[in-house]
């Protein structure tokens, strides 16, 4: 029986990424099962509750308090781990305390320090995010909200207010935007060009913008609208405003629109607007291929064909000799037949499902697209997991920031006697981990000792801080097959699985 200890530190705040780093170090101590350091907001307490990390003491904490939670083999180990957590918490920040590194505490002081500021990038915990966004809108700032856990009612209110004021309200839950070449939050360094992107999906935007960049074209602006913009409640407020803006923008010659399939009423609204726009559209409602679109638009079900359409039909292909499915299949251990997808990008996972579904494969996912079931309901299916899903991110950073979780699961998948293929996305760019490929390889057994084939794609550009080619090279040297896109990776995995079936 493991031991759970909670400890509450009153009136303490630290940004969640810093806390997660500490959680990770403490969680890695011998004998410790899980550790989470979280601010005691209602949302966090619910997450901790669900993860079995909340005791009565932690439950009593308030939104200004920090909860330190450790589950370990025995009480002594848990207590020692808590001590370590406290030590890490109290370690003075390296440079932030001297006068030069002073940061304002409020938006108003920040605006005095940066006259002419025009965008607020908000990534505070969800329950506080709406108030910060409202404050920013009232000061006529455009808002990009990375925070999630904001209610849909708040989202509607914020977007309506932004609309009245003629401002962008990108998000909540908007991971990526590129405004005039400036990458915000999770974004890649893509050249300026004539393709404008509107996306209700962060990784969808990243994949398409990188495919465009790696194939010789550029992006004028990429506007994120948040994953729920095309839901009926929100009614596509921001998507429609973004279309207006890109229509008026002289540097944008064509527009890419990416989203999950919208509700029919919203789809009509958006497609009517598209029809009235003088610029050509490439539309990707992930997985949807039977929808009528206006004459100035083309519909694609996946991200790669969307990028190809924006590239004027140019096919995206491997730069070197493509890997042979037959050869790969021969490397799988005896009796191994299944594909296990471990995705850090939700839309990458959805796109892979589109290909599996189209190929008639039995596939399951924790974030299923229409026509796909959950893993529990289909024990013999190929499984494609979105590791950015809430269930995996309690007290942990997103897998794009911190690959630890995925690397752990990778070990599990390799030793699972059914796994023939492990399918991966490696996302680089601003916001992402400094060297995800290197981390991945460091956690793998040598290629000869593996009984499963690893197939990956790298979402990024040569100009990204991590460098596309360097990441590809590290993966290849580590015995990972690198496909030229997430779609190619999925196709290759399907072909290998077919040969093994």
């Amino acid at each position, binding site marked *: 029986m493991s031991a759970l200890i909670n400890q509450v530190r009153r009136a303490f705040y630290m940004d969640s990424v810093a806390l997660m780093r500490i959680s990770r170090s403490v969680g890695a101590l011998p004998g410790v099962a899980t550790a989470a350091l979280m601010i005691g907001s209602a949302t966090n307490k619910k997450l901790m509750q669900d993860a079995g990390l909340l005791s009565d003491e932690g439950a009593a904490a308030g939104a200004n308090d920090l909860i330190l939670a450790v589950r370990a083999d025995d009480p002594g180990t848990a207590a020692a781990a808590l001590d370590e957590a406290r030590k890490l918490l109290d370690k003075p920040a390296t440079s932030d305390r001297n*006068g030069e590194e002073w940061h304002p505490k409020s938006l108003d002081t920040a605006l005095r320090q940066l006259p002419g500021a025009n965008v607020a990038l908000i990534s505070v915990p969800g329950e506080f995010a709406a108030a910060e966004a409202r404050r920013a809108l009232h000061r006529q700032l455009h808002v990009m909200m990375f925070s999630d856990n904001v209610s849909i009612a708040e989202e509607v209110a914020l977007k309506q207010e932004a609309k009245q004021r003629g401002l962008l309200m990108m998000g909540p839950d908007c991971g990526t935007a590129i405004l005039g070449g400036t990458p915000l939050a999770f974004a890649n360094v893509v050249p300026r060009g004539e393709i404008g992107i509107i996306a209700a999906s962060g990784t969808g935007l990243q994949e398409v913008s990188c495919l465009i960049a790696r194939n010789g074209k550029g992006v004028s602006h990429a506007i994120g609208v948040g994953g729920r913009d095309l839901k009926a409640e929100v009614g596509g407020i921001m998507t429609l405003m973004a279309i207006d803006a890109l229509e008026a923008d002289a540097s944008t010659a064509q527009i890419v629109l990416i989203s999950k399939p919208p509700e029919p009423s919203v789809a009509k609204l958006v497609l009517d607007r598209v029809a009235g726009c003088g610029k050509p559209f490439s539309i990707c409602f992930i997985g949807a291929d039977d929808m009528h679109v206006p004459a100035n638009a083309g519909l694609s079900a996946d991200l790669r064909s969307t990028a190809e359409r924006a590239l004027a039909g140019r096919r995206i292909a491997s730069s070197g000799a493509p890997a042979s499915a037959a050869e790969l299949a021969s490397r799988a251990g005896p009796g191994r037949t299944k594909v296990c997808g471990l995705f850090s990008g939700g839309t990458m996972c959805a796109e892979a499902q589109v290909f599996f579904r189209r190929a008639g494969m039995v596939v399951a996912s924790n974030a299923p697209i229409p026509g796909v079931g959950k893993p529990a309901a289909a024990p013999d299916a190929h499984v494609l997991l979105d590791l950015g899903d809430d269930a995996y991110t309690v007290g942990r950073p997103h897998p794009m920031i911190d690959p630890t979780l995925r690397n752990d699961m990778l070990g599990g998948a390799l030793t699972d006697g059914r796994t023939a293929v492990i399918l991966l996305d490696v996302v680089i760019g601003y916001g992402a981990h400094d060297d995800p490929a290197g981390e991945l390889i460091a956690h793998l057994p040598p290629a000869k000792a593996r009984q499963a084939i690893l197939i990956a794609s790298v979402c990024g550009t040569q100009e990204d801080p991590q460098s596309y080619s360097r990441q590809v090279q590290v993966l290849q040297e580590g015995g990972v097959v690198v496909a030229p896109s997430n779609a190619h990776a999925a196709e290759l995995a399907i072909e290998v699985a077919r040969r093994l079936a």
Partner: protein
Amino acid sequence: MAPAASLVDKIAAANQEAHRRVLAGDPVLVDVLLAREAMPGLPDRTVLHAGPPITWDRMCGPMRGAVAGAVVFEGWASNLEVATRLAASGEIKFEPNHHYDAVGPMTGMTTRNMAVLVVENRTFGNRSFCTVNEGMGNVMRFGGNDQEVVDRLRWMASVAGPALGAAIRNRKGVPLRNVIARGLSMGDEMHMRNAACSSLMVRELAADLAETAERDLGRILRFISGNDMFFLNIVMAMAKSVIAPAHGIPYSTVVTTMARNGTDFGIRLSSTGDAWFTGPAQMARGLLFAGFTEADGNPDIGDSCITETIGLGGFAMAASPAVVGFVGAGTLADAIGYSRRMTEITIGPNPEWTLPTLNMMGVPTGIDIRKVLATGILPVINTAITNKLPGRGQIGAGIVHPPLVCFEQALLQFADVHGVH
């Protein structure tokens, strides 16, 4: 969900006006008079004290000691014992200095026959008052009340006060805005360090005193020059005269009064009239002189934090590296941090009073209760710590904050007045 923009706009405009008025102030030390001459409305048998209103039964030790001394000084009782009984009986009326445009340090005793400094804000024509600083040690502001204290007050009222008044009138007043600006560049923050400005005042007044003093010239000059805190009372009257025109602006959420009586901390808001919003006076944290412990200290007391309402004292800590160590606040970087933090809760800088260590940033001026509550940053006040036993004087210096509840109450009242629920 969208706030009533018009109300928000009105608040913003009102606060800008409050800020404008503070910056426009032209305070001039014009006279030293007896309190009854300076404040004709000050009734007999009334003791004005520091901080928000308080009754005898709730007064701290130093305040009671000082009241007894003031009663004897005025001749309303023949000795301290009788004076104490009289004060407790309800025969003596107690009122805050602030109700008479006055301020006083620590216990802040002001009665009819004490000498008060008169500062006139020439832009707006209002006057403010503060007693003359008594020096250090056994003095009434720390609760001292024996014969030495009373005798000194009588000499100040009958000799030093009139001499200073004559000298000031002789040179047609001492404009103070410039003195403060110079003081900031000489290391004063005007609350816990007034060494530079006190010296400047000796320079300003010496020749005029020599020309006008009828007697005791040497004693008067020694009295002033031997007291680094001489200027504190001048700066307090100055601050009161500068903030007073910012009081009474409808819709303004700017704090126009902060004051403590040793039991309660009270604030008043520009737009909510005479209402005081109070909470328990806190214990200052800082450095205690050798031989004292925290248990010897009295809770926060005095009207001197009027200086912080106009951007001096703790708000100007960056000007005064010497004070940072004195109040136990740490390093120069910490001092700069204090002043910078105060920019978060104020309307704007005062470009005329600048902080050399902050690249000549103007002192942060005009506390907005909304910003205090939204950021959780409380005004920082530099303060003396007094012995909780009457008449023992100062035992240290430190930093203190008003309790948050003052600001919460003020906001609730403000919202109520404007029908916001």
